[in-house]
């Protein structure tokens, strides 16, 4: 086995096509940066370049589905090319593209240096893409750092606002701290298994050098990834950071980095720490992480929802709701961990990716409206500010209600399909602990109805006492709303194709294409 590994090192398969989507986004980011230094403050141009880059990348990604020419394990096995990578990459590109559209309002209003902003966003996207595609802990770490550093800066982009500074500072310090845990965990795993490659690790967990190291390392990884995915008890940074960060960035952070964190998290745990029947160390590890994550999922959902009920600020409410949603996504994650066959595992991974997609489309839509209504310096973000706007701005209000109902998981919306899909693998296991987990998730959904509906109630069932000027909807924002609204319905009603595609790894897609 070692010789094979060495051969890989000596003669790495440097297939550029395997990392083409990442390359394109990185190049687009560089062009934006360069363009900005020669012709600064060209909002439309830099935004357009970024969007085009994302679109081309998405197109390339699309061709990679079912394309057998791309080596399954390129770059010496450091780049994976499976459904996990492809589907999560798609989510990341989608989130970035919509974020660019949404933030036009904000960049204009706050006079933000857009060149920096767009290039940072592009590099953050590169980070997310590598977090999805990395099949080696080193690549995952690099991706995560690329993403994090870009996000730290973006959170503090509104330099004159103290809240924004606080947000960036908190995010940076706590984020670095958690990265330390992550890195330490990776080192310990390397010590236990002798490799940083996920595939190698998966083979080695059955018979590791030091089983204890493996367990401690895994625990460290849970802390590190848990922080990035904002799961309880590693969530405490979320509300402050989300509230303080500029609204479009908050929307981005809640959807994109969270999805990327889930991609890496799942790759390491589901694919890297599988259950090898009969091997004591593997069984112990698998059992431990499944149980730990189950408890974490329950806590995440419950704490997120209960805390969300008492919020009076819409952004904070959405922050806690995003914590709760991380909990729901964990249900599918755990389902993937306990899946009996590779097919079912892939389906479960796809369900989490789909869940993140539905969450992204809904959440971005909600943040688009919150951004629009917020006005300068995020002044209007309290629940009171939404009093009685229902029939004054019917389009915005009904759209926001739709997003709330989708977050709640009501049928015919994306949120419903997402929930059904992530609950499915967990129930399939027939494990009573997981069944309880699903019931907890469902009860939590009912709890969440209270605060999601509260926004609807405030908008429609109350009368406005202060005057109200309906904001003007700019073209990019209208596009973003159109994409998110139709996305909510499309994913809720016609999700058939996407789910199928998400659960196909390329090699199997070829087999399907033949018939």
């Amino acid at each position, binding site marked *: 086995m070692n010789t094979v590994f060495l051969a890989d090192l000596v003669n790495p398969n440097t297939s550029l096509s395997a990392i083409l989507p990442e390359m394109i986004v990185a190049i687009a980011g560089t062009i934006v940066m360069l363009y900005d230094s020669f012709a600064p403050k060209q909002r439309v141009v830099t935004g357009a370049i970024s969007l085009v880059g994302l679109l081309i990348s998405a197109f390339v990604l699309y061709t990679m589905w079912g394309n057998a020419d791309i080596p399954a394990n390129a770059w010496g096995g450091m780049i994976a090319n499976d459904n996990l990578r492809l589907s999560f990459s798609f989510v990341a590109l989608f989130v970035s593209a919509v974020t660019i559209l949404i933030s036009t309002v904000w960049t204009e209003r706050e006079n933000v240096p857009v060149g920096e902003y767009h290039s940072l966003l592009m590099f953050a996207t590169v980070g997310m893409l590598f977090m999805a595609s990395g099949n080696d802990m080193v690549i995952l770490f690099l991706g995560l750092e690329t993403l994090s550093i870009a996000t730290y800066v973006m959170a503090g982009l509104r330099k004159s606002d103290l809240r924004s500074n606080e947000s960036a500072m908190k995010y940076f310090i706590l984020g670095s701290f958690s990265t330390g845990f992550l890195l330490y965990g990776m080192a310990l795993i390397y010590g236990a298994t002798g490799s940083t490659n996920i595939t190698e690790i998966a083979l080695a967990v059955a018979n590791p050098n030091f089983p204890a190291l493996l367990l401690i390392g895994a625990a460290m990884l849970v802390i590190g990834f848990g922080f990035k995915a904002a799961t309880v008890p590693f969530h405490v940074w979320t509300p402050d950071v989300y509230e303080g960060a500029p609204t479009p960035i908050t929307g981005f952070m809640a959807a994109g980095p969270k999805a990327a964190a889930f991609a890496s998290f799942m790759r390491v745990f589901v694919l890297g720490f599988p259950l090898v029947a009969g091997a004591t160390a593997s069984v112990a590890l698998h059992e431990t992480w499944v149980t730990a994550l189950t408890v974490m999922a329950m806590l995440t959902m419950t704490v997120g929802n209960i805390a969300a009920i008492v919020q009076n600020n819409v952004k904070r409410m959405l922050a806690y709701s995003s914590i709760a949603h991380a909990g729901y996504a964990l249900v599918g994650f755990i389902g993937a961990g306990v899946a009996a066959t590779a097919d079912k595992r892939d*389906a479960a991974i796809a369900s989490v990716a789909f869940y993140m997609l539905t969450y992204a489309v809904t959440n971005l839509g909600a943040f688009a409206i919150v951004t629009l209504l917020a006005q300068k310096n995020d002044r209007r973000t309290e629940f009171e500010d939404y009093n009685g706007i*229902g*029939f004054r701005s*019917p389009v915005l209000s009904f759209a926001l209600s739709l997003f709330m*109902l989708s977050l*709640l998981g*009501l*049928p*015919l919306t994306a949120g*419903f*399909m997402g*929930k*059904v*899909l992530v*609950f*499915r693998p967990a*129930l*399939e296991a*027939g494990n009573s602990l997981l*069944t309880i987990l*699903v*019931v907890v998730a*469902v*009860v939590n*959904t*009912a709890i969440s*109805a*209270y605060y999601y*509906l*509260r926004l*609807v*109630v405030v908008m*429609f*069932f*109350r009368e406005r006492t202060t005057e109200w000027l309906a904001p003007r909807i700019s073209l990019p924002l209208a596009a973003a709303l159109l994409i998110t609204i139709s996305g909510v319905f499309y994913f809720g009603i016609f*999700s*058939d194709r996407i*789910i*199928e595609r998400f*659960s196909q790894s390329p090699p199997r897609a070829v087999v399907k294409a033949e018939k």
Partner: protein
Amino acid sequence: MDLIGENLLTILILLPVFGALATIGHALFWKQEGGLKWITLGFTVLNFLVSLFLLFDKSTASVNGFFFEKNVSWIRAINTNYHVGVDGLSIWLVILTTFIMPIAVVSTWRAVEKRAAAFYVFLLLLESAMLGVFVSLDLLVFYLFFEASLVPMFFLIGIWGGQNRVYAAVKFFVYTALGSLLMLVAIIGLYYLHAQATGVGTFDYVTLLSSLKAGNLAFVGPTATLLFWAFALAFMIKVPVFPFHTWLPDAHTEAPTAGSVILAAVMLKMGTYGLMRFNFGLFPEASREFAGIFIVLAIIGIIYGALVAMVQPDVKRLVAYSSVAHMGFVILGMFSFTEMGMQGALYQMLNHGIATGALFLLVGFIYERRHTRAISDFGGIANVMPIYTTIFVITTMASIGLPFLNGFVGEFLTMLGMWTSTALPITGGVNWNYVATMLAGTGVIFAAVYLLWMVQRVFFGKVTNPSNKTLTDLNWREIGLIAPLVFIGIIYGALVAMVQPDVKRLVAYSSVAHMGFVILGMFSFTEMGMQGALYQMLNHGIATGALFLLVGFIYERRHTRAISDFGGIANVMPIYTTIFVITTMASIGLPFLNGFVGEFLTMLGMWTSTALPITGGVNWNYVATMLAGTGVIFAAVYLLWMVQRVFFGKVTNPSNKTLTDLNWREIGLIAPLVFLMVFMGVYPSPFLNRSRESVVAIENRLTRQEAGGEIEKVETSLQPQTSTNEHR
């Protein structure tokens, strides 16, 4: 035709959606709200007409027993299909929905002023969702519609509701959503149990059912229990079964009139429909196991709902609580696990939809005029609004379950079913099924008490509140609105035989009556008719005998029998009044008192009779039955009017102030009669059994004389029935 047949249900579901789009379009481009209601009304009426096709075309019948089936793949990854179809269980609920909607729309003609476009859009979307619930045969699709129906209702209550609307709307939503979410878990659970058992996961109800029947799939032990309760809880909250009913009075009271009507008429039925379709269909063992709990809860609901209704100061709240009681009957009938009980439950669902829907409409009418719903604000309204009063009283009678109005068939069958049920055990010589039936019976009496009391307080007596003097009676729009409901209420009972051949068949076959097949009899030349006639003789003897006795008692005291000499006697002679009222009820034929069994059977017999000829396409037997039915209503009117004038109100005649109530001798005299009235109403079978042999003997002779021709005529005139007999 096939193309239409296959897509008919889809058209039904989608038409209101198109209506909603048209409404939005109209609101956007014309900016005037006058046309909105016409568009909405047009679409709902069109939908009703389309739904009538369901009754006529059965060419698409499938092996599963579902008509108008459509089954296309929706999301292949999780093997869920858009699968719709109707059968005998759902067809009437679909038509009830499409029937109620135009009425609900017209009821808002003037009531909704603000944001009319949104109102009609939500109303139309609600119709879509409700129709979807009743026709879905895929569990996931069912769940989808079940939940989707919450949203429009939430907005309807929240935006156009009363003072406390926000609280009511949120409570309504959160309560019902919690229940249905657990059902979602169970639905996904079913998918995997099926996958485990057969290798293919499915949400398809028909597939699941056939796997269960074939023995490929079985739910055992705690799994079955959990699945059962996950489904049951969702539906119990929706129905609502006591103690999950607390959202209902709030939602009903705060909702706009159209919302209350739809809520009562259709949305509550989604719960009972779900129990019947899914809990009974998928978990028959668990259903039997836990039937006791449901029966107890149903009876608590019946009695509790009635008692709480009695003390409500608000008319709308009163009607809302009466819904709790009525739905208790539906649950009771279902869990009796007798065909009759279930038919009764199904029937009761429809009745409740019509009668309670009409009541909410009527409350809405008066609210529009006076902007109050407190009973104490009214009084003596009959003097200023005679038409309104008449219709209200008839509707109330239907709601109470007066024979020949729609309510009583449902209640009758329900209780008959419960009586013969074996769902509850027999311990220590006590058959708890009998006990349950009797308790439910008291609920009927309570219902009569609180509804009539309300009627009395609102409509009769002097006009006490000066602002009521200027009330205008119903206008043509309102009359047109309520007329179909009342009309259906009246002829419903008479039409039983025609619209629901199963009910007739059941009564005929029923173990209580042991009446056997439909045969020719005494006047109607049907055995049923003869039995009924015999029984009616007995009843008449007892009830009328008792009435004469009672009149005698008062004559002894006052030496007058003129109604005008009395008034307000209830105040001085409470016991006398109580017994008098019960006897009157028996005489009117209130279910559960002896009179109604006889009347019911008689009219059923007449309906199926061939004694009268069919000329020019008119079956005169039907006409005769209907005429007889109006007689029952008149009886109710005059008897109750008499009761009202004699007993209620202030004591007008000073010489009545000194009247003494019944003494022990008189009580002892009348008690056995009252007992018999109740007993014969509750348990007619000893009487019917006894008379059966002789009746059959007479009937045999008659049939032999009149020979085959007549019998064949029966068969041709009752085509639907013979076909259902073959089913057996």
